[in-house]
């Protein structure tokens, strides 16, 4: 057994070590980097946490952060819920709605103008 490997890998790790946590995940799980204080460890999750989106690569599935103005997203360029102060329009977060649309402060989305 590799000297640094904890006896059983935590959670969904396929391989892991004491210092780095997960190094690879079991099939279909997502690899996420988690920082706790000065430590950074790998963890494996069945889905990406809020504020992250998942991308499947040939050798690893990874979670990456949504854009800075976005709270939850489907991909890096398709936001589903914007941060406070931004309006959602076609997957983008805007400080001001485009002409012809009005800002709905309840849903925080740009909506068609109702006459």
């Amino acid at each position, binding site marked *: 057994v*590799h000297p640094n490997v904890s006896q059983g890998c935590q959670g969904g790790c396929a391989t892991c070590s004491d*210092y780095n946590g997960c190094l690879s995940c079991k099939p279909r799980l997502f690899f996420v*980097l988690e920082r*706790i204080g*000065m430590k950074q460890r790998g963890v494996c999750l069945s889905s990406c946490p809020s504020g992250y989106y998942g991308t499947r690569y040939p050798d690893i599935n990874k979670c990456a*952060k949504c854009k800075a103005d976005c709270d939850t997203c489907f991909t890096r360029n398709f936001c589903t819920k914007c941060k406070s102060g931004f309006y959602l329009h076609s997957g983008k977060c805007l400080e001001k709605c485009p002409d012809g649309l009005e800002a709905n402060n309840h849903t925080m989305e740009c909506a068609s103008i109702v006459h």
Partner: protein
Amino acid sequence: ERAAVQKAIIRVIPLKVEPIVLEGEFASVAEVTPAEGKLLQSHPLSLCNTSEDEHTESGFITIVKLEQPDRDPNPCLSLANKAKLAGERGARAILFDITDDESAADQLRKPRGLSQPVVLIRGHDAELLMGVVNKNREAHVKIEVKEPPAWPDYD
């Protein structure tokens, strides 16, 4: 003929705990220059183009514990490029614990002129440093160039 290895003195100053003085060696992939900053661990997979390290504050010194090569058969980047990426993300210096991957020393020998120093650490010194990391103790690190011993003069 292989250039002499330049030794490094690594002073680790954890909060509220006695400092420890370790020794490493500068890798010639980068400049041999002192550096200091807050110690932060980086997972080896965080230094890939497909990973954004969420750390935005710069001015830190990053420690990367390298795993045995067979545990990462298809590395996303070479070690030299990982060191370069760490520097681009704000690291003032990169420490590699090569206890489990001695091949790293050869990979980081070819000069690339990286401006942030790259220091290799192994064995007991690395164990002490990773002990600080494992206890998640905030620590400040100073990397100094170890002066070679003065030649005794035989008059």
